[in-house]
């Protein structure tokens, strides 16, 4: 990874965004992101307001910085929980094979017939709108994809001699899976996880854009775009900066994922 310049750039951008999410309160106070100021509406970017102000006179820079929190939190926790569920399902399917594999694979194949975004929307439609339900929806909709990656990664390992040896020694299944199979199968899973943080952040923003996710006035990139949409022809700064923030975040995790994949996959090297 060290040699791959692109992924180092990704790591750098991601660190900056992560740092601003963690240190948001020290960079610019939350009040600037929330307090309405009707005398300063629609201001273009300037020194006191580097990204301009929105329709309520709130500072867009402050909203972008504080919005990083919910986006990153949503993206990373959806991936973390989704991968845990997918890991358990995929590992059981790949390791035990037979009936367990057949049932899990058939069910998930069918679920994957419903396009990801549509599935997530159906879940939100049924649970109701709101940030937690969006999180649940994205997480569940992603599980089949994780399960598939983890299952095939496990299948590559299970046939190997050292697994047979562990079995012959009488090591219990859960221990073999946790100690011997997973650590060896983790490569492609990490790549998939990294890449999908980007997908999740974009999908979460899309959900908020559609009015399903975070409700105003909390600062969130997708809902900022949704608010700015009606005014963008006159005040384009309202949609340019939140969109840039989403793109840069997704780009940074994709660059890191790409670098990791190249580092782990010798087939693509010269």
């Amino acid at each position, binding site marked *: 990874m060290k040699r791959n310049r*692109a992924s180092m750039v990704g790591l750098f951008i991601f660190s900056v965004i992560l740092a601003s999410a963690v240190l948001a309160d020290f960079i610019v106070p939350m009040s600037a992101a929330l307090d309405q100021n009707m005398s300063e509406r629609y201001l273009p970017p300037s020194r006191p307001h580097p990204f301009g102000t929105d329709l309520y006179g709130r500072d867009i820079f402050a909203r972008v910085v504080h919005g990083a929190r919910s986006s990153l939190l949503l993206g990373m926790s959806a991936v973390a929980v989704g991968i845990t569920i997918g890991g358990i399902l995929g590992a059981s399917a790949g390791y035990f094979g037979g009936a367990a594999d057949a049932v899990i694979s058939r069910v998930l194949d*069918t*679920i994957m*017939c*419903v*396009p*990801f*975004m*549509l*599935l997530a*929307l*159906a*879940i*939100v*439609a*049924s*649970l109701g*709108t709101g940030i937690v339900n969006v999180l649940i929806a994205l997480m569940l909709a992603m599980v089949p994809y994780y399960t598939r990656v983890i299952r095939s990664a496990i299948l590559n390992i299970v046939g190997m001699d050292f697994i047979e040896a562990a079995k012959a020694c009488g090591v219990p299944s859960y221990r073999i899976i946790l100690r011997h199979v997973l650590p060896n199968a983790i490569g492609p899973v990490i790549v998939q996880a990294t890449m999908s943080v*980007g997908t999740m952040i*974009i999908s979460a*923003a*899309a959900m908020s*854009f*559609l*009015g*399903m996710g975070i409700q105003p006035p909390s600062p969130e990139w*997708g809902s900022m*775009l949704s608010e700015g*949409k009606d005014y*963008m*022809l006159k005040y*384009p700064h309202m*949609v*340019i900066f939140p*969109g840039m923030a*989403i*793109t840069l975040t*997704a*780009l940074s995790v*994709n*660059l890191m994922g*790409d670098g990791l994949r190249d580092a782990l996959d010798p*087939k*693509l090297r*010269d």
Partner: protein
Amino acid sequence: MGRYVLKRVLLVVPTLLAIIFIVFGIMSLTPNNPAAVMLGPRASADAVAKLNSELGYDKPMLARYVDYVMNLARGDMGKSYNSRREVFKEITLRFPTTVKLATVSILVAVVIGVPLGVFAAVRQYSVFDVTGTAAAMFMASMPGFWFGMMAILLFSLKLGLLPSYGSKTPAHLILPSLTLAIPVAATIMRFTRTTMLETIRQDYVRTARAKGQTEGRVIINHALKNALLPVVTVAGMEFGWLLGGAVVIETLFSINGVGKLIIDSIHKKDVPQVTGCALFLAFFFMLVMLAVDILYAYIDPRIKARYQR
């Protein structure tokens, strides 16, 4: 070959039943009181209970699922809670728009993505490869709806070339389909590049070169033909993402398709309409994947051989 096609086509029925079960199951998680939605907050508890039992909502979920499937077989998806019109009719009115949008977009994505991917792989590490891959990475990281906004700002506002919303004329479809196509084109380009890089390192490509064939023939006849096989599957899968993306893009460009209908219905808690739209799009996606599988069987000699004996 006919046997393979028949097997795949016969699988459609159980898959469809399973998809209906999943979508119907998810939608049944809703704290379900359709009569309360339909009659409004002032209705008496008796009236609500009566209408619920008329609609069959007091039955257990499995019984309702069977009813739904039986009705669906007659093209009846129930009535919308809000407009009281037939769900099926509402969808069929809007479906052609969504299909047009999605089909044009996937074609544009393939036409842009595949040649660029091949070229980038053939000239690996060249300026074109590096900038092209970087641009593709950037495009793939961009939320489609934001790309659409930027396209509206540029082409409608600054240049005044294209209309920014609605779907009346073909010109209205240019911006939305480009918006949908570009991120998919980026994904297809990146994928084509990767499979192409793997293929041109294979022994049979080296053999072809050793036989003294021209580079163009080696790339097109030997490498590309094999590298494109997985690309067909990915393009099919991307079609699913595209249908999901269409939901967002139709909302952004105010296009009256199934996607916009589903969003409007979610906001109105119109469960039959949401269920119907989701099923329709999922069924359409399933048909596309079926077509991809059959196409694959025809172009992949390995599958062909297995079923020819």
